[in-house]
């Protein structure tokens, strides 16, 4: 039960775009079952970190370790198979597909894609389909009974909060070990955000081993859901610790308020 080694470790990850150092020597780790809040001003490199960790970008330096195994620089497909999934800041859902279809994209590694299994053995395919349908339904039901009921309707019919839920379910259905949430509250009201965070905490109760990294701008949200925080500014990690420690850190306040000696208390 107690495993000292962290689930995920970033060792000096760096990424440069031309003259811009988007990530500079970033090191931190995430433990099993932990929710880590990742905060920082716009453009501080949070999403870039997600893109590097999930294989959309190749790191220029450093290492990303999942369970001690190097995943930095692998293709996105391999990183997904290793157990890292994510959501996107601006929802990447195909709105003409049904909720079920979108979830099955998330379940790609569990699908049998053989030509025979799909085209000729339709009875076996039906059994596989029915199993997946129940799996998708029970996962959606954690977030919303309505979504579970309307699983075969196109995503275009659902509001933003439901789309966020669908994205999170798509990331969860393959039972990842590390879940990266990129600003799940963007474009939602306070009430909706609170509901969504309840749902996220609820899923963690069912998955005590799942580690979550959440990028968030709303401080009350971070305070409520995160066990620990990491703060970025200009591509560097400037602070790490509990929400309270981080919030009272003068460097963090400076990064957010932009004053050198402002708000002295």
């Amino acid at each position, binding site marked *: 039960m107690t495993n000292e080694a962290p689930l995920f470790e970033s060792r000096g990850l760096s990424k440069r775009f031309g003259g811009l150092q988007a990530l500079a020597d970033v090191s931190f780790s995430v433990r099993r079952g932990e929710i880590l809040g990742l905060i920082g001003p716009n453009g501080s490199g949070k999403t870039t970190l997600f893109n590097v960790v999930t294989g959309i970008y190749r790191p220029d330096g450093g290492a990303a370790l999942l369970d001690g195994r190097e995943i930095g620089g692998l293709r996105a497909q391999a990183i997904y198979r290793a157990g890292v999934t994510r959501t996107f800041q601006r929802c990447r859902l195909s709105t*003409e597909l049904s909720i079920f279809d979108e979830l099955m994209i998330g379940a790609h590694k569990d699908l049998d894609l053989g030509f025979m299994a799909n085209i000729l053995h339709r009875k076996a395919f039906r059994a596989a389909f029915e199993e997946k349908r129940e799996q998708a339904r029970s996962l959606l039901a954690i977030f919303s009974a309505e979504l579970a009921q309307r699983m075969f309707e196109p995503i275009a019919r659902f509001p933003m909060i439901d789309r966020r839920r669908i994205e999170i379910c798509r990331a969860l259905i393959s039972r990842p070990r590390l879940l990266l949430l990129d600003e799940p509250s963007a474009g939602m009201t306070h009430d909706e955000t609170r509901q969504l965070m309840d749902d996220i905490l609820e899923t963690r109760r069912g998955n005590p081993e799942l580690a979550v990294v959440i990028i968030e701008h709303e401080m009350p949200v971070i305070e409520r859901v995160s066990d620990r925080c990491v703060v970025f500014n200009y591509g560097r990690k400037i602070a790490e610790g509990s929400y309270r420690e981080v919030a009272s850190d003068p460097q963090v306040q400076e990064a957010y308020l932009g004053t050198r000696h402002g708000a002295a208390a």
Partner: protein
Amino acid sequence: MSVTTRNGMRDRMFAAFALVATTLLCFAFGRALLTVNDERIVVALLVTLAAGIVLAERRVTRAPDSALVRGAVSTAPAAVLLAIVALILVFHANHFALLLICTLLIYVTVALGLHLQFGYAGVLNFAGAAFFGIGCYTAAVLTQLAWLPHPVVMVLGGVFAALIGLALLPPVLRTRGHYASVVTIAFGVLFTTFLEINETFGGAQGMHVAGLSLFGFDMTRNIRLSPGVTLSFYFGYAVVALLLAVGAFALVTRIERSWIGLTLDAVRLDETRSACFGIDLARWKIFAFCLGNFIIGVAGALFGMLMSFIAPPNFSFSASLMLVAIIILGGIGNRWGVLLGATLIVLVPERLQTIQEYRVLLFAALIVGLLLIRPNGLAPRRMRRYFGEGSA
């Protein structure tokens, strides 16, 4: 319990009614389209067809769960098949009508190959006519070998089309969207140029293709069944073309209703998202491109035997554009749209002889006009149902 059985009874009655009605409608329509000589009536029929499809499509989207709609949609494949079989039987001695039916079915098959590539995987192939031509030329060369059974020749036509298509893959996979299409345009142009200057395949004069013979039936001659009944030599071609079209349609349907179809959609709709969920983009584009070219090549081999003579202009870039027009006109990603688009594009120039010279102009106007009114084609794609109508 009794309510559900009553509903089941009602559903079956609606389905039976829809089956009979659709079959009769399609048959009457096809018969009229093939036999009426007054071109104004032909135009009226084609307009009615397009309007009817648009109305039917609207009804299906508005009330997808009404018993009649479900009955009509679930029996539609059987009804269309029955109607075509009936047409082939009725016109068993009519060369011209059978030739049109054959051509139509072959174009449907080709368009289904393109539909798999573009409608599902998003690879727009502007060299459809070139792959069709590879099938034709394979037939021209291989039918010279008397010992090779013709079904094998047809399969090899598909195999060669798929194999030669492999050569296109490196640039197609390295580029995205429109740029990949430009690669296929270049290939299409190269293909006709190569045929014109290369004397091995008859050069610009073209090549003769031996007629199809199957299981001892030589399909270059009429078949006398009895003193009163003589089958046109096109009859056998019509049967083979129908089998081919039905096979391609069934294959494409099964693909759409499976994890493979879903994966192809994912590749087309968002590559970054797909990569983040483990989908091997290259693998699925290769799958769709090769399988599509295979289908196109098999249809090409049959077409070569049907025509008995082929020449490079048949496979030019503008012929490829006609094929792409079929799927755009019908509705990208909709199998039924393919059927509809092929009907319009094959029959219009054949039945309206007076406008033959203007046909490219007419097509252009038709497509521009249609896309203004219905940007997604006559029959836009519907939601995937893994097990047909009524399944959840």
